[in-house]
């Protein structure tokens, strides 16, 4: 797997590309979900492969279970019948009862999975697992008939797929070899060389812009936006097909100034025709509660339909095709 502290990125990347080519189907990566009939992640009917691990830590995160790259334990409390079997079963003594509900010490848990098999209510789960490119592609290929019918394909999302770019490149190569349209849904927070390599192999890039002001961006996501914006420019200059995606987070990026700046930036890019705006939803909070490791997310009101329509209108007035909800 890619590590961020490599001293010579270019060399490392060409090495990784070579590994991806040579390793082909056996390259491994960490995935936490594969969703079929994904209809909001690019054209047509698609299968979205969610990569585990993300360099950003957005305060509103929609997929908090994707942040950590390693597999992690979780609990759907509503299904728990409070039998305590998991506490007894655990060889690592990682599970204890907390007001009747099992609490798992994420540090001690080895994700062996024994408690999951035994859980009467099906409440316990492990999020994330290692998969080979071959395994992922086998799942992706299951819906080829629907991709063909609808002009769809596969979308690699996350988490951040670029964090596991060796795995991603191998998947993109395989997709191309099998004539499956491949999109990458990315934060674009990665080394330029990684972005170049991915851009070359992907058929479509769905690039997120969360905020145009770097300080605000850092405050709410943990990182600056310079690299992100640079990478989007790079992709566009290289003639890649890019769709801009803006999550609309009330109080963070939905103000007029930021929308205007986002529109201006998008207009400065060559070849970008479409902006998808995605309304914030609270699914992330629900999912965060299940994680044993626990992630605190901010509580935000969901944007009104009216607000979404007015933002859409602003982007449209700049000549973009806009879709609410991706």
């Amino acid at each position, binding site marked *: 797997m890619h590590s961020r502290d490599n001293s010579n990125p270019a060399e490392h990347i060409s090495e990784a590309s070579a590994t991806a080519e040579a390793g082909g189907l056996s390259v491994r990566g960490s995935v936490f979900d594969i969703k*079929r009939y994904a209809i909001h992640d690019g054209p047509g009917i698609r299968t979205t492969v969610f990569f585990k691990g993300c360099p950003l830590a957005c305060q509103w995160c929609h997929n908090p279970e994707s942040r950590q790259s390693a597999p992690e334990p979780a609990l759907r409390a509503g299904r728990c019948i409070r039998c305590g079997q998991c506490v007894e079963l655990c060889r690592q003594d990682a599970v204890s009862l907390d007001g009747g509900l099992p609490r798992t010490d994420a540090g001690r848990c080895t994700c062996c999975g024994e408690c999951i098999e035994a859980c009467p209510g099906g409440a316990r789960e492990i999020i994330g697992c290692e998969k080979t490119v071959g395994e992922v592609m086998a799942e992706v290929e299951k819906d080829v*008939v629907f991709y063909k019918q609808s002009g769809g394909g596969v979308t690699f999302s996350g988490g951040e797929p670029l964090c596991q770019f060796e795995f991603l490149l191998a998947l993109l190569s395989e997709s191309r070899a099998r004539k499956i349209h491949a999109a990458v849904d990315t934060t674009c927070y990665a080394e330029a060389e990684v972005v170049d390599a991915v851009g070359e192999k992907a058929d479509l890039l769905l690039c997120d812009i969360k905020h145009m002001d770097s300080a605000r961006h850092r405050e709410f996501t943990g990182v600056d936006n310079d690299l992100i914006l640079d990478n989007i420019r790079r992709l566009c200059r290289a003639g890649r097909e890019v769709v801009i995606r803006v999550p609309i987070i009330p109080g963070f990026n939905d103000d007029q100034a930021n929308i205007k700046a986002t529109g201006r930036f998008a207009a400065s890019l060559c070849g970008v025709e479409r902006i998808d705006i995605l309304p914030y939803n609270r699914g992330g909070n629900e999912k965060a509660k299940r994680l044993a490791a626990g992630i605190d997310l901010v509580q935000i009101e969901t944007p009104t339909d009216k607000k979404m329509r007015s933002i859409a209108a602003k982007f449209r007035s700049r000549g973009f095709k806009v879709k609410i909800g991706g």
Partner: protein
Amino acid sequence: MNERVSRLRKESVETRPYISTERAELITEFYKSDIAEGKSAVVTRALVFKHLMENKAVCINDGELIVGERGPAPKATPTYPELCCHDLEDLRILNSRKKTSFVVSDEVRRKYKEEIIPFWSGRTLREKLFSLMSDEWHRAFDAGVFTEFMEQRAPGHAILDDKIYREGMLDFKRRITEHRGRIDPNDAGSYAKEQQYEAMAICIDAVITFAGRYADKAEELAGECGDARRRAELLHIAEVCRRVPAHAPRDFHEALQAYWFVHLSVITELNTWDSFNPGRLDQHLLAFYEDGLAKGTLTREEAKELLECFWIKFNNQPAPPKVGVTEEQSGTYTDFALINTGGLRADDGSDAVNEVSYMILEVVEEMRLTQPSACIQISSKNPQAFLERACEVIRTGIGQPSVFNTDVIIKELLHDGKSLADARTGGPSGCVTVSSFGKESCTLTGYINWPKIFELACNNGADPATGLQTGPKTGEARDFMSYQQLFDAYSKQLEYFINLKIEGNNRIERLFADEMPAPFMSVVMDDCIAKGLDYHNGGARYNPTYIQGVGIGTVTDCLAAVKYHVFEKQTLTMNELLKAAAADFAGYESLRNKLLNHTPKYGNDDDYADAIAEEVFEAYYRLLNGRDNTKGGKYRVNLLPTTVHIYFGAVTGALANGRKAGAPVSEGISPSQGCDSKGPTAVVKSASRIDHARTGGTLLNMKFNPQLLADAESIEKLAHLIRGYFALGGHHVQFNVITAKTLRRAQEKPDENRELIIRVAGYSDYFVDIGKELQDEIITRTEQQVF
């Protein structure tokens, strides 16, 4: 819809169905008299029909354009005591039951007590039918292994083609006279043919008389009518009723009225299953529509208004009251007339979608009625715009139209031995079963409970519910050493019950052929006239019989659980599994979790489970398909449930898939409720593993959250999903577009949700009208969420 239609619709929707004794009284009067003294069975039935058509009340509702009721008024529901005579307890239940109730007045009760019951008790076909069945048959029937369609209703599932739009009843009569004149007296069948033709001719006269009585009534009302516009309408109605169905219709209005008289005649003659059905209405009406527009005698608005008035006539006729197991298997007011649109033209196989097809979709969308039901036929040749328009109607959440794959339907009909031309005139009716319209007696004889049969295979043929030896002894399951042994036991049980059912059907088919012929139906279905043979006696060109398989999802998951856990992973013994099931999983929660959540399940595009589904299908196909019925036709396979999956679940104990005792079994070819977690493409991939082309219909139900159909792009994607399923060979799919939350709210507050329509199985129903168990079951069917 305009003000007239809106008012008629409101009246129809708000009138509660009630029992009318009109038909029962007329028929009792007839059989008490000597009218039929010395007559053959078929002529007797023709005279019964004549008696009904000459004497039943004529009812023209204020403002309506298409006329004719089955009973004396809208929702006045007749009974058929010659088939099934309700006793006082039945009437009490009908009046008081929570769902699909019928108001039974004191007067009705009195007439039943004093006249109807005393005469019919001991003479009904139902009693005779049950007395002809073996003890083994009764034991299986009582255990809920199968149901019996003909114990309260007559064979039906008949759909009309275009013949009544080309010719009138008098043309049919002329043909009958010609055939009658050609009978060779030395032919061994000459007497039977003579009687059949005599009966058919009587029926034709009776229908014309009936229409004439409507013409008289319309004129009489016109005479009394102060409103000039309505007076003109009534006079026009009189003219239409003088013309059709005696003669071929000349315009759009006459075409609809001609069909409606034929419809009423069929459902008055007998209480045929699935009432009756105009079939491919858009094809039948197109020429009349175009002609009217060209001549300037019809506008689009007028055509739509007539169609909407026609829709209301269907809604005015609830399914005849059902009791006992028949109610359990088909608990609905809907009587399954399924109007077809789209598909291919019968003559040259080209795209058949036309202006009327789109108009019908508009009518369905506006009317929001459960009857008639509508479907679209989609072939690879039909335009995407038509499918997407239909998806827009589906999005409104009325469960209509259902969507059928014409390309596969044609294969199915060819598989039954039909000619290509006849296959192309066909389509689905009722829920999903296909037939060649206008020329087929396609008889559904009852559902068969595969999960119960699996339970019996696990218990050496003994029914745990009663301790009775209901099936053959196929070995103690705890001693089975391989998955194959269990599967063989299941197959043997299945074979035994199929044989038992066919043994019963052989008698029942003869019972209807000999004692309850249908001479009017025989007039309109080819080739009864040419053959001089009744519809119930092999007169139709095609005569397949079905026993409808139920629970492929449940049985597949059960077999997968045993194969996976007991014989492959060996984490569980058969004995443990049987004990846990016998205890209804009390004290076996972890085991049940393993079965529920850690076992391959049908509906997830998982080869492990889906390969078993194929085996389950093939076993049924091998044992049933191609067997002979008594009418020169063959048994065919179809997979659909109506509401029987609730009843079949109620009589079946806990099973190896982790399903608790009494819980519903899976419906149609849908996965077990809540067991599909990979989304709709995975469901249709699993569902397409069985070879639909070798069936006569399968039913796939999907529930969609409205968000999944929020905009034009997602509607387009739904259309692609359907096309993808059809490219894989799927037969049918239908959608409920509704959130579980909405359904729960409706359950709590039924009064505020009277208009909520959902798709149950091969039909739609008002949610508040269906039983709590079924409501719960629908809520738990996996709702496909936005990803």
